[in-house]
């Protein structure tokens, strides 16, 4: 791959593009720093993890497994007393909702503040890839555990991650592994494993699914310990024939068999390219990335490094051509405007209204992305919420500090104010008809500009179609 040419052509716009796609963007000074560091150093810094866990202490709600089990017990023990049972269920529901809220806030903070933004972006990718929803799992602790699993393997071995998935309690519950047994195996997980997780639609037969489903039997979640258990008498330990290979595959054996299929690496590479760059990779680049993925035995870091240093990743058709996901919109704007993001109720509601509630993807395929993010109503919601979230004049936590972002010399005239604002929000100076429109908006205002004028300008700029692109 032509790493040299990526390094040679490295512009501030490229640095901004990389930070936005590989992470969640950055402030003007963070982009300047990445520009000065150069392509290779910036990519390596993004991919080499320096643990920052001390910044994000483990959640109170999840450290106490006993409490969760106690709630489960009180529901079970009150079965014969309808009033007490209802109360116990209500308590459990409230505890679940509280824990889910904390979990979402915790992850949003990680995305906003982590020194490893690419790892968090990959956790988001894996969450959409191995999509699992609270709506069915109903146990925030399982989802937290899954989220940590994604973080551990975020940039590491995809093979290791894929082998862990069938014994991940959240996934076990979401795709019905937890109840599947040798007498009548449940096909839900086996089907999605092939269609959505490892191979892609059309790369297998219905017979492959039926056979594979037999390997995912006998796995249970013990409600008392919340750990995964294997019940041999419920497991189908016989021979299974999948893709022409016959053997007594268990869950891990079957996942490894699928990982050895030639389609698997290309399937993942295409999905990673669509997520980070958009669309499909040029054929030669796609092939090179697939070879890298396969020859490294599925090292995600290796394939991302090649991708982020490939000139194709910086092609004009790639830059500012992707519709921001609601998460990118929220976290990215917070980084651009250097605001606090703690995952407040308001911020979580915004994500719900824009169609990306964490831990609640619409279905097992995850978020469709791209144009599916935008309808008339979500477009209007983005415009409206940009104002209320980031430009509130009250003491709303998370509003931009305009005095700090726009010092006196920038406020002097429309041109300097507009240029500074555009570089913050779009990573580039304004141009074309948009520039004319925004200057026209500023024309009747008094200068030096007041905070009210600046807030209105930012509101207008964040309501533009272009602001929805990254």
């Amino acid at each position, binding site marked *: 791959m032509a790493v040299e040419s990526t390094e040679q052509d490295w512009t501030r716009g490229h640095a901004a593009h990389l930070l936005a796609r590989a992470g969640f963007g950055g402030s003007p000074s963070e982009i300047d720093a990445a520009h000065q560091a150069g392509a290779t150093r910036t990519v390596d810094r993004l991919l080499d993890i320096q643990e920052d866990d001390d910044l994000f202490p483990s959640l109170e709600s999840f450290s106490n497994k006993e409490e969760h089990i106690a709630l489960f017990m009180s529901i079970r023990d009150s079965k014969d007393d309808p009033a007490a049972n209802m109360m116990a269920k209500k308590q459990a529901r409230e505890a679940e909702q509280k824990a889910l809220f904390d979990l979402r806030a915790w992850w949003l903070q990680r995305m906003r503040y982590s020194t490893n933004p690419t790892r968090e972006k990959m956790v988001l990718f894996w969450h959409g890839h191995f999509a699992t929803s609270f709506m069915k799992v109903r146990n925030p602790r399982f989802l937290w555990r899954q989220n940590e699993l994604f973080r551990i393997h975020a940039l590491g071995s995809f093979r290791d991650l894929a082998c862990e998935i069938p014994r991940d309690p959240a996934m076990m519950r979401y795709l*019905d592994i937890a*109840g*599947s047994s040798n*007498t*009548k*195996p*449940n*096909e*839900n997980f086996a*089907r999605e494993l092939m*269609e959505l997780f490892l191979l892609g*639609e059309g790369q297998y037969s*219905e017979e492959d699914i039926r056979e594979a489903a037999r390997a995912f039997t006998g796995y249970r979640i013990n409600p008392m310990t919340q750990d995964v258990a294997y019940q041999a008498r419920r497991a189908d330990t016989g021979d299974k024939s999948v893709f022409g290979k016959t053997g007594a595959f268990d869950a891990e054996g079957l996942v490894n068999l699928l990982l050895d299929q030639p389609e698997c690496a290309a399937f993942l590479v295409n999905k990673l390219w669509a997520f980070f760059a958009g669309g499909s990779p040029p054929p030669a680049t796609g092939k090179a990335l697939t070879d890298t993925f396969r020859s490294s035995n599925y090292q995600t870091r290796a394939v991302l490094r090649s991708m982020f240093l490939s000139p194709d990743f910086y092609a004009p058709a790639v830059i500012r*051509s*992707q*519709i921001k996901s609601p998460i990118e919109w929220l976290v990215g704007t917070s980084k651009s405007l250097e605001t606090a993001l703690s995952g407040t109720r308001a911020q979580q509601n915004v994500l719900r*209204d824009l*169609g990306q509630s964490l831990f609640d993807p619409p*279905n*097992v*395929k995850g978020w469709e992305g*791209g*144009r*599916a*993010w*935008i*309808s*008339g*109503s*979500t*477009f*209007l919601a983005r*415009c*409206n919420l940009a*104002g*209320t979230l980031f*430009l*509130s004049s009250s003491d709303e936590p998370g509003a931009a500090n305009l005095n700090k972002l726009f010092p006196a010399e920038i406020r002097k005239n429309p041109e300097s104010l507009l240029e500074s604002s555009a570089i913050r929000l779009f990573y580039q100076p304004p141009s074309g*008809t*948009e520039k004319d*429109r*925004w200057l*026209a*908006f500023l*024309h*009747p*205002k008094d200068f030096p500009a*007041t905070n*009210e*004028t600046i*807030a*209105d300008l930012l*509101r*207008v700029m964040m*309501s*533009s*179609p*272009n602001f*929805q*692109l990254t």
Partner: protein
Amino acid sequence: MNATFQTRRHFLRTSFLGGAAAWTVPVFLERTFFALDAAAAEASIQTATGRDHPILVVVQMAGGNDGLNTVIPFSNDAYYAARPRLAVPASSLLKLDDHTGLHPSLAGLKSLYDDGLAAIVQGVGYPNPNRSHFRSTDIWQTATDADKVSHHGWIGKYFDACCAGEDPTVGVAIGKQEPLAFAAATPKGIAFNQPNQFRYQVAGSADPQGVEDSFRDMGEQNNDENMSGASIGTLAGAQASGDEADFLRKTALDAQMSSDKVREVTAKFQVSNPFPKSQLGNGLELVARLIAGSMPTRVYYVSQGGYDTHSNQKGTHERLLKDLDGALSAFLAEMKSMGTLDRVVVMTFSEFGRRVAENASGGTDHGAAAPLFVLGGNVRAGLHGSHPSLTQLERGDLIHTTDFRSVYATLLEDWLKAPSNKILQKQFSKLPLLG
């Protein structure tokens, strides 16, 4: 400055309306000059006045509804043999005849059936059924053969063929995003959940008028090149070019144009029948209010999820069908109260039915053919098509007896008066569902 924007905006609107003389014509309700011209030029172009055109309401039951436990062949021993835990006892069914009964949760649909307002098409599916939720949903939405991929939906192709020049609200989806069924060469249709949030809000601004003017101007200014002397057809074509920025501009413009009208209508019209407080109930209630407000909408799209009952199906399925039944009954009752029963046809669908035999988790896995409902004042009530055999199966699944595109062809030809062979790109035989 504002004067210039004002002019641009009016220029845009007049372009939509086909001439400067149209300045005073309300944008949303009446037929456009362009559409009138086009209608004269090509007979298949339709125009909607909001008061007399036929309306189709599509109800998606997402997840794969267990058709066998919805319309139940209770006289067939094979049904009970395949479902020792999940079979609904014959004694509790709502019997339609000596062989077939509805799930006990469907009391409202049974009344509609008895009142001559409900048709049931049995065994609907397609050859080489796909058991993936997503792929099979796409097949239903695009009306293609199972081995063909299309990026345009069957309703979108209808809009392309028959609704050029119509308002974007010709298709309305209640939800966060438009369904694939609406995707078209010239995209039309809007999607929203809550009408009161479907607007540009400038609260908190120091200069609300300036902010709103600038917002309203953006879609238009970016299309100046396209606007000068261009027809609406080329404008829309340019917007559908596949470029994300163009897509965003078009969506923004449609949202601006539609939001005022939608809010006005929904604020003015309320329903008089109680709807279930569920996603589907709320969706159909909103549709009823939009119909009451004479929106120029031809196709409404609402959905209900949760039918993927791999485990512990019994209670879940009962609850889902009850919700469906309550929402559909309320909607039909509302249409009756409003005097619009004869203008509306409702069609339900699900991406597939479920396996004939239950699984070990008290649920059912992905299957194939299933029944669907067609409701309205103009339908021919009764059972249509034949129930698939319970013993001659394909990999444990029912073999379809009616192609879903025959249902589409019937609705397109006999209800929307559209050329089905042009839209479905094949001739499908029609069913005697209407008239």
